[in-house]
């Protein structure tokens, strides 16, 4: 009897120690769920979701503080991916946070720019180059289209330009079979026949 108890207690201790050691050795750095959510988000860093950047929003989703339909740049497809990842129901984009727009990049009218550097400070992804009292310009390839530079500009010289399709970025369309409508036979033609 005592022997059996000792064996069981010993086993429990040994396994407990092994588990404890494993939890220390194989500790995960950060929250893997946050990283998975962050990988789905478009990294626009626009703050339309109400959080200062994509990572904080991902953290909020993982913590249950935010819903999955607050990211307009990600669009319905992004919501669908988040729903898949988190095993939740899909819901349409929350209009309070904005609507899905075609991808565009900011453009500085260089003749109007006064070189105040306010937009450079506002840009979350370092996509604007320039210096105080020097003309600024946007590196179009790096711009995420977050629109955060528009509000601070005192000269109103920043506009959003939609990204145009090029031969390289063009996509084959979904195949559809075109139904051709025969021109209707007019009444005189029928009479003639």
């Amino acid at each position: 009897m005592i022997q059996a108890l000792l064996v069981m207690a010993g086993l429990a201790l040994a396994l407990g120690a092994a588990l404890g050691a494993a939890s220390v050795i194989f500790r995960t750095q950060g929250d893997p769920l946050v990283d998975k959510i962050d990988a789905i988000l478009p990294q626009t860093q626009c703050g339309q979701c109400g959080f200062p950047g994509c990572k904080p929003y991902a953290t909020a989703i993982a913590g249950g503080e935010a819903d999955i339909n607050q990211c307009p740049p990600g669009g319905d497809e992004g919501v669908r991916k988040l729903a898949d990842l988190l095993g939740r129901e899909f819901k349409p984009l929350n209009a309070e946070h904005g609507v899905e727009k075609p991808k565009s990049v900011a453009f500085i009218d260089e003749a109007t720019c006064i070189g105040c550097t306010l937009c450079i400070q506002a840009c979350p992804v370092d996509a604007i180059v320039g210096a105080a009292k020097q003309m600024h310009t946007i590196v179009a390839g790096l711009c995420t289209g977050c629109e955060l530079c528009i509000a601070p500009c005192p000269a109103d010289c920043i506009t959003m330009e939609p990204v145009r399709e090029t031969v390289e970025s063009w996509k084959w369309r979904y195949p559809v079979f075109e139904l051709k409508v025969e021109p209707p036979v007019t009444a005189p033609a029928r009479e003639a026949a």
Partner: protein
Amino acid sequence: MLPRLFSFNGGVKPDPNKGDSTREPIARLPLPPQLVVPLHQHIGGTPRPLVGVGERVLRGQRVGGADGNVSSAVHAPTSGRVIAVESRLMPHASGLSAPAIVIEPDGEDRHVEREAFDWHAASPGEVRDFLRDAGVVGLGGAVFPSHLKLNPGKAGHTDTLVLNGAECEPFITCDDMLMRTEPEGILRGALIMKKMLAARQVLVGIEDNKPEAAAALKAAAAALGDTSLEVVVVPTRYPAGGAKQLIRVLTGIEVPHGSRSTDYGVQCFNVATSLAVFQALEQGEPLIRRIVTVAGNVERPRNFEVAIGTPIGFVFAHAGLKPDTDKLIMGGPMMGMPLPGVDAPVVKATNCLLASSAALFPPPEPELPCIRCGECARACPADLQPFELYWHSRSRNFGRAQEYHLFDCIECGCCAYVCPSHIPLVDYYRYAKSEIWARERDKDAADSARERFEFRNWRAEREKEEKAARLAARSAAKPAAAPAATDGAAPTADAAVDPKKALIEAAMARAKAQKEAVAAKNTAEPDAAQQAQIDEADARRARAAATPDSERTE
């Protein structure tokens, strides 16, 4: 000795339709009134324009410089004047425009001074750079820069160089006619490439429906007397001209998913590319012309030697486009793509210009549901499951489509050719591929944006820390410096205010001293002469003050 031939799975046997365009020899097309030379004609980076509007260019002059190593140069096809560097309509299914150099020929066709280049003496790297600057790219249709493929690789040598003269697609005969007219140049080019790749043998694969081409090459090989050159006639079956399929037929090597033929010691080039290599290295002629088959619904189907940049409408006009043409295709009927208009130019990838009519190519029948007959899988030369790819592409389930190796699909069109339900299968694969590429581009952009965002946050954090550290250092330094500066001043009771107050006092003391010094200078004892000058000046001032302004101006 008859070499042993192998076979690939699947494939189809469409009607070759090659007779009409091989009746007459290659004709040299005259120069059009305007040449539109697109900068981006190959896989890789877009070349930088090297000429400006109004500049005179000579034939063979580089007008676009390779951007990085995975790129290739473009050249002026004739001498003339650059009248525009702007976006022009491209021969692409999208119907979009891309930057091009528009040249107005002057009719003199003066050649730029050829740079002497001895490829025998040059290092392999220099020869590759020369080919890149000569704009040599694969002319079989994929337009991959050739210099990148002419690298012997890690092993230091390649066993077999395969020259692709199979030309399996119906209607296209440009390689056939080129092999008949330029067999020696093609084989000489192959020997150059063989040397660059340190290859053991060269196998030229030609389908058995081109006996004249095979005979011409065999005669040329015998004349050259090189035993490593072997011309092999392979059975006609579409797509025997696919690189992986031809390598399989000639060597028996099946290149598995995810690896390249070079991993197995085989490299493959088109016969026209071989001639371009020969012309670039031995004759100093960059790639500025190519053979184009004009076939289909035209009066005089024929092969033309066309300057790159010639508008497609100009080419068709010489072949006599029939009025009932409903569609223009670049490439063959199996893999070709619809052309957006006749203004698009001939590019390095243009092997065939095909005019289609309702009689020649009846419009596609309505798409019916897939009945899972498996015909497509039997026809697939890449050993894929086309119906699985179709279902997943159709339902936009791109991850699953990739699991079925969507990117191993060579878009040969065999599956759609045999499909009893007339499903445009290749259109679905092209759609799925471009969607996947777009997603990858978006993901790369998002990853780089995340990196920059995180770096920016880290930088802001670091700047804050540095500022705090600077402030701490200054406030730590002040109490030590203060007693020395304000030696005589009485220390105030408040210890916290002390350094600041002391500093202010010191500054005020300095200002006072300065003021006194300035004042002292002015009131220094003047000698007699100075005193006289001062008096004189004072008198002038008094006079000036007494005289009204209006009188003083006179």
